[in-house]
């Protein structure tokens, strides 16, 4: 491989024009009419910077994860690197062909058979005919749908469809492989197969770019990571630091939400305060969230409360909607409420609670209303080390019985 980096990006920006108001013209006729009425007025747009002045270099043989919250510009970055859309400013140098897998099964046509689709999709992704023919058997074996090769893919189960589509992309011989969230599909076994395939790609000296929300995936596959925040590159380097930034971003947004007037929601009714009754709890202990809601005599009707309990990776572990347990409150009286969770047992770590007040719409949405810490101990009677409990999102009160 040459000494040049696989990917070199300098001063990259992407700006989208978005119409300013709700009365943006929908048809050419409308906009023509408007032009006639106000011939001198320029159409008004807001500029939205999806990416701002990004610089980075990725060497050969690296698997680089791109993390960030929704709307941080991850997918836009990937789309620009794969030349699907063009940047508004900046320079990109790519050291080889880029194979992209932004969505499983793009270019698959439901009416065509599996065999035909492999060829069509392979060509689309940039493989030459000979290349496909040479690796055809490998592709088919990887996908495990060999029996159904001459069946139109519209009759495939969604799992088979995805497996075949991924198999084609995984056998791309492009020097750079860009993958967006595709591992969220397929069963666990297939996911593991895909991960190891991508690891092989990186090991063979090629470069992998991976966008993912799943911290687990990024940790297990990537050798470096980029953290994006609102279109800006905050960190490029070790995976651990990037993921710390990512986790941190959930805490930062909770500080912004402390001021009720800055929170989303109609504001007709707001939470006054919220806290966990104990800052630190044991995994199997009951968790109690206490909160207070103000009054609004004009509102009428009854409202309900909802709470999301999120772990450090930003995964909502449970949603506690008060409608499910028949808890409705009248807004003409101040509410001092509490939410009690007997189950599930939570894994050690920091948890944030998002609180919502809703009637027909959302009255108040308070992300990160409060946090609590679960102690690093195991609630199981015979546990001596963490072995046997690393997997799973929560702990559970389980038992085995035998004859």
């Amino acid at each position, binding site marked *: 491989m040459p000494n040049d980096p696989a990917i070199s990006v300098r001063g990259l920006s992407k700006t989208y024009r978005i119409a300013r108001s709700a009365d943006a013209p929908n*048809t050419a006729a409308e906009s023509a009419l408007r032009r006639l009425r106000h011939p001198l007025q320029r159409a008004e747009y807001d500029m939205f910077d999806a990416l701002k002045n990004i610089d980075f270099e990725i060497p050969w043989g690296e698997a680089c994860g791109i993390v960030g919250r929704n709307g941080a510009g991850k997918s836009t970055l990937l*789309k620009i690197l794969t030349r*699907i*859309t063009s940047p508004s400013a900046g320079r990109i140098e790519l050291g080889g062909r*880029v194979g*992209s897998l932004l969505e499983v099964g793009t270019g698959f046509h439901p*009416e065509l058979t599996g065999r035909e689709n492999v060829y069509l999709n392979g060509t*689309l*992704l*940039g493989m030459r005919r000979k290349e496909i023919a040479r690796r055809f058997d490998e592709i088919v074996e990887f996908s495990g749908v060999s029996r159904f090769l001459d069946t139109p893919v519209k009759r495939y189960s969604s799992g088979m469809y995805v497996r075949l589509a991924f198999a084609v992309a995984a056998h791309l011989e492009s020097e750079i492989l860009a993958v967006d969230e595709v591992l969220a599909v397929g069963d666990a076994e297939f996911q593991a197969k895909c991960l190891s395939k991508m690891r092989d790609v990186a090991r063979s000296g090629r470069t992998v770019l991976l966008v993912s929300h799943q911290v687990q995936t990024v940790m297990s596959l990537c050798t470096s990571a980029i953290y994006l925040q609102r279109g800006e590159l905050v960190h490029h380097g070790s995976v651990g630091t990037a993921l710390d930034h990512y986790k941190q971003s959930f805490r930062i947004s909770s500080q912004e939400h402390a001021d009720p007037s800055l929170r989303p929601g109609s504001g007709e009714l707001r939470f006054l305060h919220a806290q966990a009754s104990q800052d630190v709890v044991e995994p199997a202990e009951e968790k109690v969230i206490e909160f207070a809601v103000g009054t609004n005599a004009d509102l009428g009707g009854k409202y309900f409360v909802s709470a999301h309990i999120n772990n450090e990776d930003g995964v909502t572990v449970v949603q506690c909607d008060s409608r499910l347990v028949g808890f409705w409150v009248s807004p003409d009286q101040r509410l001092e409420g509490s939410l009690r969770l007997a189950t599930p047992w939570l894994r050690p770590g920091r948890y944030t609670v998002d609180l919502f007040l809703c009637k027909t719409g959302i009255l108040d949405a308070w992300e990160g209303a409060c946090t609590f810490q679960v102690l690093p101990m195991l609630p199981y009677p015979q546990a001596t080390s963490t072995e046997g409990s690393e997997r799973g999102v929560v702990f559970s009160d389980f038992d085995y019985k035998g004859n």
Partner: protein
Amino acid sequence: MFVRFGMRDVTLRYRQTVLGMVWVVLQPLISAGVFAVVFGGVAHLPSGGTPYILLSMAGMLAWGVFSGVVSRASSSLVGNAALISKVYFPRILVPLSTAYSVCVDFVVSLVFFVALLFVYRVNPGWAVLLLPAWLTLLLLISCGVGFVCASLMVKYRDIQYIVPVAVQTLLYASPVAYSLSAVPDRYRWLFEINPLTWILQEFRWSLLNHSAPPLWQIAGSIVVAIAVFLLGTALFEQMERGFADFI
């Protein structure tokens, strides 16, 4: 890739049909038959000595190429929106590949047409050798127009309503279903300035041994075809950068 795309179109169109490729011949034949009955049998328009069905079939052969490429190419980008926004490849292949399936149709219909020539004992003469040239000109014009429509349709979906009406209008405004000699003198100039008329006359010259169109029309058709194709390609490439954002 062009071939692969084109083959996809061809396979797709006749999958799950009983008659398959027979439709390629049947469609223009039925239109040509209707034209022969209406214009030749009912309206008694002149056909220049050839059986009317041959006259209208020759017209439909050429027309099928134009209308096929223009209408399929114009909707091809929007129809493949998922591809455009998810994979990178030279975008121009999408509208261009429609020409592939249209050419397949043309060849199949041409074979049938030649059979008809034998049945009616018509000899097209040496001019038939020029047929590939006329087909190339027609494809250039059609692709040029198709590129323009396709790239405009990404932004303005109005095009999808305009194209069928425009193609339909042009069908009757060009000497497809009738010969140019049937046109009254006061409208004649309207037909004479239409590049499609020139190419249709060239087709009839090569297929039916009709008299050759004037030299200026032949030269004109070459210039116009190349110009339209280049302009269409230029416009397409200019708009290409924005496709993924607008589609």
